[in-house]
Structure formats: structure tokens, C-alpha cells
């Protein structure tokens, strides 16, 4: 899922600026699961903003609503319908949701309340870790299912580097060396030959370096 965290309140207040009637728009998918922008977080932020502005005698109106997903048209329709009556939408979705709404609302500002952070997994309640970079060319079958692009601090394809120390990465003793993990995993899988093979320089144009990506499935189109 996409993992995000809420911006500090001061930054959100600065982003809201002079807009008076603002819809705080939640998303019930990834950001609900990582407790950043689901229905509950929307109500918490709305309550904080009402109190903050109320305390300072600034009159603003905050509406709140959460849809299942902000990245699909049929779900965002309630927001589009309300748009005329608003000064801005403060989206608590990931960046995808903010973009998706902005693309469809000509004259209404769509503001981000979250910092979208990474593609990750829930390790345990309240702990999320980054697992994938969406680089567009997966090599996980060669690396025992552990992504060196994402989990190696240098994203090197032929590791480990000289900084690997006792299973930890040189950037921090709290960070596992991805290539150490790959080595251990390949050993357990009896596939150590994979680590000796040289991974060639990769074509990064399959990732963001190739410009914004688009996928079309003609068989699915209506």
C-alpha cells in the first residue's frame, strides 16, 4: 500500500491560507490503513482546525467526508458535486488522490494534508516499512524476494558494498543491509549462484526517470 503521514498542523494551516470553506477529504484505502488520512484522521484534523481557528477568532468552515478511494472516478463524484460550494478541498489522500481531484476540478484548489512517503507494508500495528519503489522492472526473482533498489541505501544491483557491517548498512546501525539479507535468503534457498551473477546496468527509463508512466489495457477498456 501507499504509506503517508500527516503534515504538521502549522504547515497545513499555512497551506489553507485564506480559504474559508474547506472540505477535508479522506480516503478509505491505503491512507486509512496507515492511519494518515482515513475517516478518523479526517475527523481528528477537522476538530483540531476548528479549535485552532476558533481559539484565534478566525471564522472558517470545515466540512468533512471520506470516500472509499480518491483514485477512482466513481468514488470521487461526491467531492466533484460539492465543489461549487467550496473554497478549497484539503485532501487527506496520497498524492495520487490530490492529483486525481485537481485534474478534474478546473477552478477549485486541491491542497495536500499529507506527505506521501513510500510503498510499504504493515510490519506490526503502528509500524510500516518501505518495500518497493515502483521502478518498473522487477528483479525480485534474482534477489530472493528482497528489493535492492528499495532496501539498499545505494540501490546498488551488485552488492553488498564495502559498508555492510555485521548485517547492518553503513548509513545506520538500525538499518539492515539489504544485500546481507539477500545473501542470507539466497543461501537458505540454495540459490547463491544468483549473487555471483553480475546484474547489468539497468535501464532506469522504466521508472520515473523515463517520465510519467501510463498503462493501457485495451482488453479492459469500455
Amino acid at each position: 500500500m501507499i504509506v503517508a503521514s500527516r503534515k504538521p498542523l502549522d504547515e497545513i494551516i499555512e497551506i489553507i491560507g485564506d480559504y474559508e470553506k474547506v472540505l477535508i477529504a479522506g480516503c478509505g484505502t491505503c491512507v486509512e490503513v496507515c492511519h494518515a488520512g482515513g475517516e478518523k484522521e479526517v475527523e481528528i484534523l477537522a476538530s483540531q482546525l476548528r479549535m485552532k481557528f476558533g481559539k484565534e477568532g478566525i471564522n472558517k468552515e470545515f466540512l468533512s467526508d471520506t470516500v472509499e478511494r480518491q483514485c477512482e472516478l466513481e468514488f470521487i463524484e461526491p467531492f466533484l458535486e460539492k465543489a461549487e460550494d467550496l473554497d478549497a478541498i484539503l485532501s487527506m489522500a496520497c498524492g495520487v488522490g490530490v492529483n486525481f481531484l485537481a485534474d478534474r476540478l478546473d477552478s477549485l484548489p486541491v491542497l495536500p494534508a499529507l506527505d506521501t512517503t513510500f510503498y510499504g507494508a504493515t510490519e506490526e500495528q503502528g509500524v510500516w516499512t518501505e518495500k518497493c519503489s515502483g521502478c518498473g522492472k522487477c528483479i525480485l526473482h534474482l534477489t530472493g524476494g528482497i528489493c535492492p533498489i528499495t532496501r539498499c541505501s545505494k540501490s546498488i544491483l551488485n552488492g553488498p558494498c564495502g559498508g555492510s557491517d555485521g548485517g547492518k548498512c553503513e548509513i545506520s546501525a538500525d538499518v539492515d543491509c539489504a544485500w546481507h539479507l539477500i545473501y542470507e535468503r539466497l543461501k537458505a534457498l540454495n540459490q547463491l549462484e544468483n549473487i555471483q551473477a553480475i546484474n547489468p546496468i539497468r535501464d532506469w527509463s522504466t521508472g520515473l526517470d523515463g517520465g510519467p508512466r501510463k498503462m493501457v489495457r485495451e482488453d479492459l477498456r469500455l
Partner: protein
Amino acid sequence: MSSNVQNKGAFEPQIIAFCCHYCAYAAADLAGSARIQYSPNVKIIRLPCSGKVDILHILHAFEAGADGVYVAACLEGGCHFMEGNLRAKKRVAYAKQLLEEIGLESERLEMYNMSSAMGGEFAKVADEMTEKISKLGPNPLKFVKFAKQSRKSGKEGS
């Protein structure tokens, strides 16, 4: 609890105590049977476990004008539901940060632990909190008219 409770004359704080049914609520009962006097400023809301308390319950209490809020839970290690009180403790700590963010003193929110046998402690905590909040003064939000307020019921307790 609303703007109709303005402070005329001396400030009488309004304090909400979220009390666990198995400890603090029973302790309040015991204080009552033992005729121990405690501050009448404290209004009790009974919860089946302190772990039921939600960030939104706390925020909405302040938004509605409560001057102070506290969660009274079982002694650590003594929760009827194993660790509801430890979860409540973390939520109170987080809610304190949220209050600081909006510029409301986080001391207006506290967490206390007691057993059902501690009627005296219940009274002491109620008095202590009342005294502290009296010193802090009224919650500025009780004078705010949320005229344009539009609050949908959130996912409390999930």
C-alpha cells in the same frame, strides 16, 4: 457542556473523567459510600475499559468546552482486558501532542491509574485535577461559538 456555561464570578472548571468500569468508576462509588468528599467539578463518563477511550472522545470534549479531561484506568498490570489501560496511556500521550499543536495546554489532559479499592485516590485525583485546571483558567474554546461548525460523526472507538 456548552457555551451556556460561562464563568460568571469565580471560575468553576468543568472536568470530564473517562473512567474504566472496573476500577476508577468503582473507586468513585467507593468514595461515595465512604462519604469521601471530592470536587463536584468532575463529571464521570463510564467506559467498559479505559482502552475504549478514543482520541476523538478527548478532542470533542475540549471542542465542546471542557476545561480539563482525564482518563482514569486500572493500575498497570491490572487491566481487566489485559492492556486496555496501556493503550489508553499511549492515546492520551498522542492526544496531548494534538492539543499542543493547536496551542491548548496539554496539562489539561491527564491519565491516572487506580484500583477499585482506591476510593480515597479517586477523590484525591479529582481534587488535584480541579486545582490544576482552576490555575490554568478556562478552556478558551468554551467562549467560541462554532456557528458554522459542521461535524459529521467520526469513527470513534474503532
